[in-house]
């Protein structure tokens, strides 16, 4: 599927290399993500899945290569990107309510020092409704199950009202029924022309849920429509052990002062 739309691609990555503490974790990634697709990022532990989406948002320093979001550097287009971080990335004992967290999704639309408006609250309410958490709006966030917490983050991303969504393991700790409901929600977003990149750990689900897959193991193994890339050979290449020399070299580089 080659889209010849005049509008630039939601995400274009060219020869991206990312290093953690001088230790490279992603090598030479090239990606051109078409608009309106639901894409899974899969690969073994330590393959750099989260690193990839964090690098896109500038949360990690990029060693080389460039990233463009809707044709511009991320800094100029961050308001068009929604983000669902990993659940463990925050302290759930923080004294905020479910509603407070979802409202944070509106902050990107507000000026510095501007308070959320009534309209923002309405939007946040709608988003809570969509993930079926409206009755919990006033609760402190530690009084939720893991799956509910995950849905709070999802509602916050919905409140961002973005065109490109980056989601880091949104299905961790979610029961099967909720997972189904979330997927329905993501498909609905896709049908409205949104582009979604979802880091996922479960292969069986990946095949079923996503139209396209990014298979990652320190470098890009494959990217394409699910039925084309979900093949035993490609999966074997992705999961079949690390590229030992590549990771050895990475170790050596990391150990250098």
């Amino acid at each position: 599927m080659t889209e010849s739309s005049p509008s630039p691609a939601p995400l274009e990555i060219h020869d991206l290399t990312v290093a953690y503490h001088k230790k490279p974790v992603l090598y030479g990634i090239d990606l051109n993500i078409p608009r309106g697709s639901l894409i899974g990022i899969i690969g073994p532990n330590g393959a750099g899945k989260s690193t990839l989406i964090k690098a896109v948002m500038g949360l990690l320093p990029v060693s080389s290569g460039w990233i463009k979001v809707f044709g511009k550097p991320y800094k100029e287009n961050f308001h068009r990107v929604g983000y669902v971080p990993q659940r463990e990335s925050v302290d759930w004992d923080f004294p905020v309510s479910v509603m407070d967290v979802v409202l944070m999704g509106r902050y990107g639309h507000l000026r510095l020092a501007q308070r959320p408006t009534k309209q923002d609250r309405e939007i946040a309410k709608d988003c809570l409704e969509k993930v079926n958490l409206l009755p919990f709006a006033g609760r402190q966030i530690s009084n939720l199950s893991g799956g509910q917490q995950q849905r709070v983050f999802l509602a916050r991303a919905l409140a961002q009202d973005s065109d490109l969504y980056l989601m880091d393991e949104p299905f961790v700790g979610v029961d099967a029924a909720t997972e189904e409901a979330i997927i329905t929600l993501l498909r609905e977003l896709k049908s409205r022309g949104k582009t979604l990149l979802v880091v996922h750990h479960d292969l069986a689900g990946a095949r079923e849920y996503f139209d396209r897959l990014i298979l990652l193991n320190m470098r890009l193994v494959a990217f394409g429509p699910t039925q084309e890339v979900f093949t035993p050979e490609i999966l074997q290449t992705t999961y079949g052990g690390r590229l030992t020399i590549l990771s050895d070299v990475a170790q050596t580089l990391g150990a250098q002062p």
Partner: protein
Amino acid sequence: MRRLLPVVLLAIIFVAPEAAHAARISELSDSTMAERALRFLTFQDPSLRNALAGSMLLGICCGLMGAFLVVRKMALMGDALSHAVLPGVALGFLWNMTKDPLAIFVGATLSGLLGAGTVQLIRHTTRHKEDAALGFVLASFFGVGICLFTMIQNIPGGNKSGLDKFMFGQAAALSQGDVLLLAAVTVLAAGAVLLFYKEYTLTSFDTGFARSLGMPVQFFHYSLMLLLAFAIVSSLQAVGVVLVSAMLVIPASTAFLLTDRFGLMLLLAAIFGLCSGAIGSFFSFVGRNLPTGPFMVLAAASLFAGALLLGPRHGILSRWWRQRSRSARIRRENTLKAIYQVLEDDGFRREAAGVSELAERRRETREEAMRQIASVRKSGFVTALGDAVSFTPKGWQRACEIVRNHRLWELYLTNAAHIAADHVHEDAEVIEHVLGEEIVLKLEKRLNYARRDPHGKLIPGLKDIRMGRASRRPSRATGFGPDISPV
């Protein structure tokens, strides 16, 4: 606050004799404690007005900044920073050999920031984590500060009076300029927090998300650290280097015990800080200019203890009370269940169970059984006529629910989880008291509305319990219900 009084008075009694000859500023040493308390409460002294205003202001700004430290899990940062400012205080004094508030403020802030920078440097360039870095900075900067202070004491000349107050704090030593400085810092801190509440909250809660929104996270982090340094430095004279971190952490922790809303937490932290400051300076004044810091901290700690004990949600007392009422409920429900079982053993041919039957069933003494029955009777679940105990409609419903919960759970464990039938009873004894209606509906559906538990006993259904509990003949088909219309 009343509870605090005896504690502090006791402390005064122990400390006072020593302090009497240590009292330096006080020309009031001839007055009695009551007279001094009166003077405090009527604000007769201008120096006292300074001391009180300063203490309250420092309470507010330390409380506000402390709230951020607590939710960011950076409480130790406050401790390290407050010790790290000491060399700066000494250098500020050495600048022109006098206690110039501005020079000391600048010196202390710079030294504090140097300390914070050193922590960052150690974290990023060595394998040490933050705790070791904080420990190192706290101790080494404090050490340097002490050396400089000793040096200053040995230098002849210069106006060194009041310099010793930086260690343990003396609100009475606050000058008009000091109070103005404190007021400026408090207004700055409160203004920044009010104006950028949204930004400071988000960057504290979820840094990654804040950065993804393009927020200048570093700016907010460092501006917070700068405000923190300002708060510490301007509070130094009144609380002292050693204890200023307590004024940061304790009022904020107290607020955290009482609320789940960050905005309210900030407000409460400021209020608790203010109260601690006022109480501290009061006792310091009453106790002939004892060091203020320890009294403020004592006051703050007492408030913390009060919140820990009496807090509505996380308080020890309310938790104990909830626990207690829950076990009382479980006991009542077990009694109801026992009555049900006694009646069931007899095929529901009778309406009433005897006390001795119940005692036997529950393997209790008769007195114990009587006490249990009195308790369920008080809650309106049963009526008792002599030795015969019979259900009220409400009691019958509750008993059916408990029995149903128990048997449903047993059935669920044996059918769905494949646990042996003789293993499930203990578990069901616990679960029966916590199953909600929603889960019961799910269980009934999952078990195809089964009517018999693994031991062959009948399970009362949810519908049956709700409908027709009045004037129902014991039905052999469902196992329920004698006619239990109340006597």
